[in-house]
């Protein structure tokens, strides 16, 4: 290929303009970043040594109350709806399971029918000793030392799905496809959507806690979901644990889940 003088000047001029333009933009961005000051944590942010949740099933009046929590979570985090063509590849952060499925190994033929059909809310247990973190080859999922939340870095995840094999609670979902076309409700622009090929799950609304608000599901639960610092004897979650008989999912595995379930108790007698 050969170019004449005229074409050469045209290209050179264009390239120079582009370069100058780029430099101007870079300078503007630099100025903006410098003027905005250092990144600081929101002083209103909630802090804990270890966040935990207690699910008090008796406080849910109806299935609609439970669905409200699920909808709040999935709406806040832009969780895509089930693709009717591939229902087995669904993504969910918070959903319900019956007693025998939520607590396999504890099922009992003669359990009171009320409990047998109760839709238990299940989610990531934010284990103190999380197997998913142990197996992740890139630290894309990690336990935040400051407050025990098991976090996900969606930009680092390579999509090997080792964490899904390791999680004994089936808490993790994989984006088998681009999730964006399946976000049918209004997009929450405060929380990033995901790309295909990464794993995701509940993160105890770390982004809301940082701004000083309770997790989305807790906020709409009318007190059925108690959330707080399990190391603080005065916290909401500790009050529930101190006054009720609670169980956790698969405690025999040594993962130390941070999600507790109230089954019966004072108010339910």
């Amino acid at each position, binding site marked *: 290929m050969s170019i004449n003088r005229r074409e050469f000047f045209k290209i050179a001029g264009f390239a120079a303009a582009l370069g100058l333009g780029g430099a101007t933009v870079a300078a503007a961005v630099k100025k903006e970043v410098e003027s905005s000051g250092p990144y600081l944590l929101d002083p209103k942010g909630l802090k804990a040594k270890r966040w935990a949740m207690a699910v008090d099933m008796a406080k849910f009046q109806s299935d609609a109350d439970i669905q409200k929590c699920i909808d709040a979570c999935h709406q806040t985090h832009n969780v895509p709806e089930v693709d009717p063509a*591939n229902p*087995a*590849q*669904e*993504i969910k952060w918070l959903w319900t*399971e019956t007693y*025998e*499925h*939520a607590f*396999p*190994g504890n099922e009992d033929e003669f359990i009171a029918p009320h409990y047998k059909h109760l839709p238990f809310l299940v989610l990531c247990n934010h284990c103190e000793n999380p*197997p998913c973190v*142990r*197996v*992740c*080859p*890139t*630290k*894309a999922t990690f336990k935040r030392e400051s407050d025990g939340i098991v976090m996900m870095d969606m930009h*680092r*995840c*390579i*999509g*090997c*799905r*080792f964490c*899904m*094999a*390791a*999680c*004994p*609670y*089936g808490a993790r*979902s*994989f*984006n*088998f*496809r*681009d999730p964006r076309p399946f976000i049918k409700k209004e997009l929450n622009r405060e929380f990033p959507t995901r*790309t*295909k*090929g*990464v*794993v995701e799950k509940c993160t105890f609304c770390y982004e809301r806690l940082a701004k000083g608000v309770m997790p989305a599901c807790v906020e709409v639960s009318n007190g059925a979901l108690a959330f707080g610092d399990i190391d603080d004897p005065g916290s909401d979650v500790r009050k529930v644990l101190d006054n009720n008989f609670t169980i956790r999912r*698969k405690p025999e*595995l*040594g*993962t130390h889940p941070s999600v507790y379930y109230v089954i019966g108790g004072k108010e339910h007698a």
Partner: protein
Amino acid sequence: MLEKALKGGRTYWTWVAALLAVIGIGIACYIYQFFVGLGITGMSRDVSWGFYIAQFTFLVGVAASGVMVVLPFYLHDYKAFGKITILGEFLAIPAVLMCMLFIFVDMGQPLRVLNVLLHPTFNSVMFYDMCVLAGYLVLNILVGWTSLGAERKGIAPPKWVRPFVILSIVWAPSIHTVTAFLYAGLPGRHFWLSAIMAARFLSSAFAAGPALLIILALIVRRYSTFDPGKEAIQTLGKIVTYFMLTSCFFLGLEFFTAFYSGIPGHMQSFIYLYKGLEGHHQLVPLMWFSTILAVVAIGILVFPFLRRNEMILAFAAACVFISLWIDKGFGLIVGGFVPNPFEGITEYWPTTPEFLIAAGVWAIGFLVLTILYKIAISVKEESGGEAIH
């Protein structure tokens, strides 16, 4: 020595062209998967690993089994294996290559693969798996290529190779042990949570790998003037016999623990695989086919007079290979995900593009194997075939 792969007859080039065609189809399907995502596979939220990872698992075993010919030759000076050590080493190379490709095609974000190196995580078994596989690949290329180069010149391989040979012998079991640890350390996956997992992996590998080697040696003899030797093939037959028995014994141990203890979690996957669970029995015919092949193979192999007939031995070897391929290259991985952590059942079957991608990876492996064997055999046809060490 590579130029030797460029000289071949009509059969050779037809075979290469056929492999290239399968590779082409596989690449086309992979491009589709790359843009759409792993949604094109049969995998799901519940069965989150499938055919790809199962193939990877099986092939690590084939790679490790190279040690079954290298060890007797180098450590015990077993001369009959002198002719086929290179076949073992050159089988390990494409096997490891296929392992790496199967991991790669299974990744949701393949372009981020180097994150494993950028953020090395010492508590992840996958990190170690990557290290040992890469190491094993390098060791086999180094040892195989150097020894063959020496043989071509009719001299003994340089002395510095020997420490690498010893290292590769120790290294081989490590690759399959680490692969077993990917599964055996996961809480809540009862089917895999077994202390005998690595032992099972190694025994099935040392049966399936040499079984493949027997078939390859017979093919080599038929299509070239190089004879791997009757004695070498017979010894491989004995190795396959003992390890197939060990492998089936270990599987029996799993059955005993699960069913005598009667703990539901330990029994469920076995019931799903061999009988069907709660009306789901997609894999049952496949698992029984694997079992029948294993019984037939053992029925032949334990009788020396049957084993001595090379055609019967080849048939038994094929039975062993296919039986273990079904068991480990499919059932073992899928079975671990059924039932799911909620004791619900989602079944898995690979889709057509998923299967074609896997076929493409196998074809790449066979192409590399063909090229390497072509080179090795051409050298052996000139030198007479005896390696010196």
